[in-house]
């Protein structure tokens, strides 16, 4: 590992920032959760950094929380941080529908009961050509799916973001058809790398990052990692996904990170890591090729982009 220690947010600074944030910005959010376990650390500093690969260094908390694509709060990169203060992620319930044994609505606390949150350091590659490295806290989606017991007909999972135009100013304009939906094939959803995240950098997700919980699929473009989920639906046929519905020529259902398949309007061969000056080559499946490529064996990835 060739990471300069100066490139990494020192753990102390990160803890200090946590204290600062707890004390000011998000105090109401965190205290009203009542369950600090939403983003409890299981790993120590060294374990945390062990998850980083060569040439990777963590993006700062500041970067991760001030540069977001979350059109529900506006289309500008700083809109989510600036216009999400009215959003109330508590209390939260999730409706589980479709081909499952017990379709029902669950409180988030009940869903999280008995689940151990893990630290996962993932690269996030946006379709627009920038990327970050984010220390998430969350758990494998498969844990949850197994709890719900989907039937064997369930081939896909669809997720839906909450629709609350009164709290989400971006939803008051029809920039996209609301609510935002996304989907995964069942094997992708069950893959151990696919997580539901409840926190980052050791505390609960802020509204702009998809509070109170969101999907993170590290080998797909960022827009697949749907935020502020209220519905999980198990279905037989490939479900609708917002961007690919709006513009099927430009955004496919799979949207796996692939430097060889260009977006019609821009190249996907390289990316700018936020905080770094020069561009770097984009890696196949965002660098998770070893872990995930078996799921796409025999598939023409130019056709199923």
């Amino acid at each position, binding site marked *: 590992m060739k990471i300069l220690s100066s490139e990494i947010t020192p753990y102390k600074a990160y803890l200090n920032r946590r204290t600062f944030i707890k004390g000011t910005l998000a105090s109401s959010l965190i205290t009203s959760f009542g369950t600090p376990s939403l983003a409890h650390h299981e790993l120590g500093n060294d374990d945390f950094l062990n998850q980083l690969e060569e040439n990777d260094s963590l993006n700062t908390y500041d970067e991760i929380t001030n540069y977001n694509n979350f059109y529900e709060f506006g*289309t500008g990169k700083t809109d989510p941080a600036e216009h999400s203060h009215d959003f109330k992620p508590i209390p939260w319930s999730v409706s589980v529908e479709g081909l499952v044994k017990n379709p029902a609505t669950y409180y988030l606390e009940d869903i999280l009961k008995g689940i151990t949150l893990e630290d996962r350091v993932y690269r996030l590659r946006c379709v627009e050509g920038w990327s970050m490295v984010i220390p998430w806290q969350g758990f494998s989606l498969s844990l949850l799916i197994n709890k719900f017991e989907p039937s064997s007909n369930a081939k896909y999972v669809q997720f839906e973001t909450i629709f609350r135009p009164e709290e989400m100013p971006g939803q008051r304009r029809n920039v996209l058809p609301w609510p935002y939906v996304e989907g995964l094939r069942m094997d992708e959803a069950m893959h151990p790398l696919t997580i539901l995240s409840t926190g980052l950098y050791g505390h609960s997700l802020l509204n702009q990052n998809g509070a109170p919980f969101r999907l993170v699929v590290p080998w797909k473009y960022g827009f697949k990692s749907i935020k502020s989920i209220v519905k999980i639906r198990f279905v037989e046929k490939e479900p609708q996904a917002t961007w690919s519905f709006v513009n099927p020529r430009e955004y496919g259902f799979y949207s796996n990170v692939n430097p060889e398949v260009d977006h019609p309007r821009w*190249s996907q061969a390289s990316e*700018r890591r936020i905080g770094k000056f020069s561009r770097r080559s984009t890696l196949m499946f965002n660098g998770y090729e070893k872990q995930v490529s078996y799921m796409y064996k025999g598939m023409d990835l130019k056709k199923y982009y």
Partner: protein
Amino acid sequence: MKSKLVICIKEWILKNTIKDMTLSTKMMSRIKPFIFILLLLPSLLWIYKLSINNLGVNPIEKLMHNLGELALQLIIATLLVSSLAQLKYLRALQNLRRMIGLFAFYYVLLHLATYIVLDHYFNWEFLLKDVLKRPFISLGFISFLLLIPLALTSTKAMVKKLTYKVWKDIHKLIYIIAPLATMHFFLLTKADKKEPMIYLLIIFILYAWRIFIKVFKH
């Protein structure tokens, strides 16, 4: 300088309230230095902000966007100014057009330099592919190329040398550049097309107005 501006504004208000609404060339030449500074300032501010890392989390993208947006606004502003200058009282606005046009070119150059130097660091192979393959980049690049003759022939000496008629024909290129540059912006916008649509609408209204006046005059 400040007192000059105050005097100028006072004069204009006085004139307006008393009898004549006409913006005189004298007043125009007094205002001009202030507009020059006003148009130069954003570039200095952004370059300064870039140097102290105060342009947000993705400063290169932000700088490129700011420069491009202002360049486009200034291109449209030259059209607007010529239209307004057709009004009897605002004829003096004519004298502003060249400066705004040259500033548009200045911001286009900075925008392009950001793309070539900061965004892709002289990766010519990639840049060439980008220009040829990506419609929005192609449109931006064509707009830039078409602006060059306008910038080169912007001096009074050039008008004389070329004769006014030829010079005017060359500068009609702006009617192509404005919609091309706007489409460059339109195509790179992912979902929220409001801003480029507003620009297209302004251009459409200005063109319609020109055609109307031409037809009406004959």
